[in-house]
């Protein structure tokens, strides 16, 4: 209770009474008023005609509709678009901050090339020539398959152009971050067969059992989920949050269940066991669609009794039974997985245990249930032309067989070297586990090209920078984000001429392809990215350009689903944390803080300003621990402490919070950026990815790390 109500209310009390009104002469005051009115150094914002332009925010997968208020054509403020199906007027603080991202003087303002340890400005022509020549050389040496590309996501035409460019050169190495979306896809494939992505019809569900999903921490489509959550009471829907720490979602939920971190799968299996044992499952659905149900029921009965699960998870057996009953008796219950914002992959064991709950109550592809959605397919690309070099190289095994970005950089520097890396809206040197080693791996890559307009940690390692437009300058389609049942494709469009000498990455790629000539050039027949977007989106274009978005009606996909319960029996080894308990008695978990952006987006000065002084104080990050943990480690609030993990150590301060499980240390993600020319955001706190490493999930091959063992001592 630091910014508690006592200090909040206490300070001002009595002050009113204490202040005497000075009988200062009115003349004196008038003089000082006049004197103090001369402030030539404060800016006087020019007035002008106010207009509004609509566009779509592309800062996170939520893709909210936004309005840009302009004065004489100059953007001054971002507001939510109230007629937009995703966010209906609401907007998150990062979206509002797009205005700061636009005018940020620390942006990269022109193409740059590395010269020793500095960057020098070059022309677009020189920059593109350099990249084209180098890639042509690599292709000629037969290493086209060693060209890799990392992007923020795989959907949409800009990532589509990157994939196409790589394919035309002969590489199938396109990687996006390992996220819960990928893990859900793999889980659905293992259980139901076939490729589909998970959509959660949370709006129509009356019981949401969330295993750490931060529904109001920015999970999936953030503002959409804020809205769904806030109508929960009116809709008579219950939210149960399983999490070792009282997150905002847990605090807002109807029930908070503090299970030991890493035991979520066990808890889900225990709940499923009760539902089966008490015959509360949907037997019609299970008999009609299920395979291996009896074996599963037997395993759960034997190994996952409420008492046994209570032992593992620390949740009382009675509570497990109660939740199981409430879940199964609801008319449209949903169980969801994907911790925090869902920007990390998580383990397939955990996701499939959670999804088992959806399966046994039969709430798949029904209103208020989990939907298995076919891939969005509005993009209609002509075939890629490939020369012999490209065809041969494209056949080679990818640099990481699981398609994991974490895996790509773990492999780099081992036997499979990356010859060239293209980076678009990704910041692996910051956002991947064991960031230090990833940076080392990137440094070893002979040729790194960044398309960023921000000098982030990865771009600092680039050899050539082809800076891209920012959100408000940029044209781009935005396919619907993770976890939504209703699909809305948005169109981000420029509301202002580019402020600097940047380009839309789509156009940069077209020009690059043309410079590379031959089949590569021929694979990109469009004059401009705009023309490409219009051609590729085909039927959707009219609607997109007209109203700024295209929404599909939200109906569950038809046709029955099959359920292979035997997969769940098979995948039973939990993903363990790195480290030995005897050396590292505590558990460090990363926490998504809604006011701090993590991943490739760096927080704005506005956002950093809102961060609590219990999270960031001066340049120090505060880790959150229970007072009990503090006592055991002889620490008190505000103390400087050293946190050590098998991966690294850092100096932090201590924040005492009753709402976290003893033995657990929570640390905010997204701080600790190194940005030399942005003192408002850079150099504050510690990047948790320097303390945590990736752990490869045995089923998916993705990074499933959710925590790491740690110790904490007074500095």
């Amino acid at each position, binding site marked *: *209770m630091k*910014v*508690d109500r006592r200090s*909040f*209310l206490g300070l*001002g*009390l009595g002050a*009113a009474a204490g202040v005497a*009104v*000075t009988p*200062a002469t009115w003349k004196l005051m008038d003089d000082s*008023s006049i004197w*103090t009115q001369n*402030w030539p*150094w*404060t*800016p006087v*914002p*020019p007035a002008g005609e106010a207009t509004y332009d609509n566009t779509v925010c592309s800062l996170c997968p939520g893709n909210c509709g936004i309005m840009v*208020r302009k004065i004489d054509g100059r953007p001054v*403020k971002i507001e*939510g678009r109230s007629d937009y199906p995703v*966010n209906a007027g*609401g*907007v*998150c*603080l990062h979206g*509002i901050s797009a205005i*700061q991202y636009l*005018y*940020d*003087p620390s942006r990269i303002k022109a193409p740059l090339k590395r010269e020793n340890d500095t960057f020098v400005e070059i022309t677009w022509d020189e920059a593109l020539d350099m990249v084209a020549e180098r890639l042509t050389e690599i292709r000629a040496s037969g290493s086209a398959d060693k060209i890799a590309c990392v992007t923020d996501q795989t959907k949409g035409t800009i990532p589509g152009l990157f994939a196409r460019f790589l394919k035309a050169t002969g590489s199938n190495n396109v990687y996006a971050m390992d996220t819960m979306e990928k893990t859900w896809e793999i889980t659905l494939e293992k259980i139901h067969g076939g490729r589909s992505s998970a959509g959660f019809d949370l709006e129509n569900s009356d019981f949401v059992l969330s295993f750490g999903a931060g529904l*109001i921490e920015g999970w999936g489509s*953030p*503002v959409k989920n*804020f809205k769904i*959550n*806030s109508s929960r*009471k009116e809709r008579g829907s219950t939210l149960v949050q399983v999490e070792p720490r*009282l997150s*905002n979602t847990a*605090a*807002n939920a109807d029930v908070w269940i*503090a299970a030991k971190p890493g035991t979520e799968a066990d808890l889900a299996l225990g709940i499923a066991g009760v539902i089966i044992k008490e015959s509360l499952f949907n037997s019609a659905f299970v008999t009609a669609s299920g395979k291996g149900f009896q074996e599963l029921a037997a395993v759960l009965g034997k190994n996952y009794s409420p008492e046994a699960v209570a032992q593992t998870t620390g949740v009382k057996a009675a509570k497990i039974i109660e939740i199981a009953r409430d879940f199964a008796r609801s008319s449209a219950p949903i169980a969801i997985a994907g911790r925090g914002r869902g920007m990390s992959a998580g383990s397939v064991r955990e996701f499939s245990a959670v999804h088992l709950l959806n399966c046994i109550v039969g709430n798949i592809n029904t209103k208020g249930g989990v939907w298995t959605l076919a891939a969005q397919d509005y993009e209609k690309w002509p075939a890629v032309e490939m020369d012999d070099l490209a065809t041969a190289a494209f056949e080679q095994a990818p640099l990481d067989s699981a398609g994991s970005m974490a895996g790509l950089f773990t492999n780099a520097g081992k036997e499979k070297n990356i010859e060239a890396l293209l980076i678009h809206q990704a910041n692996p040197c910051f956002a991947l586990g064991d960031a230090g080693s990833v940076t080392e791996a990137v440094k070893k890559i002979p040729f790194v090209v960044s398309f960023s307009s921000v000098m982030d940690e990865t771009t600092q390692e680039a050899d050539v920078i082809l800076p891209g437009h920012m959100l408000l300058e940029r044209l781009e389609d935005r396919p619907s984000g993770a976890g939504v049942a209703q699909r809305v494709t948005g169109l981000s469009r420029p509301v202002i001429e580019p*402020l600097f000498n940047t380009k839309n990455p789509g156009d940069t790629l077209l020009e690059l392809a043309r410079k590379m000539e031959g089949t590569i050039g021929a694979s990109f027949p469009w004059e401009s990215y705009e023309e490409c977007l219009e051609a590729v989106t085909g039927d959707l274009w009219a609607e997109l350009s007209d109203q700024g978005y295209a929404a599909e009606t939200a109906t569950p996909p038809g046709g029955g689903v099959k359920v292979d319960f035997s997969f769940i029996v098979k995948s039973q080894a939990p993903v363990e944390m790195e480290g030995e308990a005897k050396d590292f008695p505590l558990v460090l978990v990363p926490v998504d803080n*809604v*006011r701090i952006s993590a991943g490739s987006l760096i927080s704005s*000065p*506005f*956002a950093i*300003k*809102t961060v609590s*002084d219990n999270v960031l*104080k*001066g340049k120090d990050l505060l880790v959150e621990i229970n007072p009990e943990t503090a006592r055991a480690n002889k620490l008190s609030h505000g103390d400087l402490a050293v946190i050590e993990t098998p991966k690294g150590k850092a100096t932090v301060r201590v924040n005492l919070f*009753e*709402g976290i*499980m*003893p033995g657990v240390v929570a640390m905010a993600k997204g701080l600790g950026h190194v940005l030399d020319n942005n*003192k408002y955001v850079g150099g504050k706190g510690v990047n948790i990815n320097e303390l945590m490493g990736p752990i490869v999930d045995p089923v998916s091959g993705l990074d499933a790390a959710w925590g790491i063992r740690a110790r904490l001592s007074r500095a």
Partner: protein
Amino acid sequence: MKQDNHGKNHKYGMVIDLDKCTGCGSCMVACMSENNVPFKEDETRKKDSITWMRVYKLTNGKPFPETEICYMPRPCMHCGGKGDHGHSPCVSVCPAVATDYDHSTGIVSQIYTRCFGCRYCMGACPYHVRYFNWWDPKWPEGMENYLSPDVSPRMRGVVEKCSFCFHRYQQAKDRAYVEEREEIEEQEYQTACTQACPAGAITFGDLNNPDHAVHQMVKPDPHACGKPRNPKAFRLLERLETNPKVYYISERDWVRKAGDNYLEGEWEKVKNNHDKGHE
């Protein structure tokens, strides 16, 4: 219905549903962006971090796992003062009439060009909503381009605070005037924080107007200076008789209790019993 409102005057106010607020901070940033609030390198010294709208985190103080938290957004309360006559704590102490009570709207203004920085108002305000500009604001080169002409940037030496986005009221009035309308509609004048809140936790409107949502939500008592008749609604430090125009709503007892300081056992007597005044 007779209102304590000098004829046709408005009484703009806000109702914040603390059970809906998620602590996301959109309101804070919407406010900063709307009102040209500057930022500096270190904003972690919260006492001098200018945030007209600030979201506080309260806890029930109970140990794990009984702990609960609640986020409390705090703009200026636009106090009507004792008896609701416009003698807000801050207004009554300002020697320069730099902060004033507007009887036609109930909004407490702040006129920067009159303020000479004595900071009496900061001492007088029981809600810590006022901030002093210890430095001149400085925007990194180029960022001053996003400043809005509707709100003048402040300078070193003056006090600033939430204005209920008064410029939006003026704009709405101007529009109504051009269209030859007497009155502005509820939706025509909304504050930036209200508009941005993704959870719909903030409601803004005329407390004097029975058709407005804010009125219906708190049912202000015209005979008790607008004290809420909704038992789930409360105002901060009600007993100081500052008569805030910002109301909070929560189903949770401990949250409502956090709105004031109570002696032991006292809360049990007053809770859910807002009709009884405490003179």
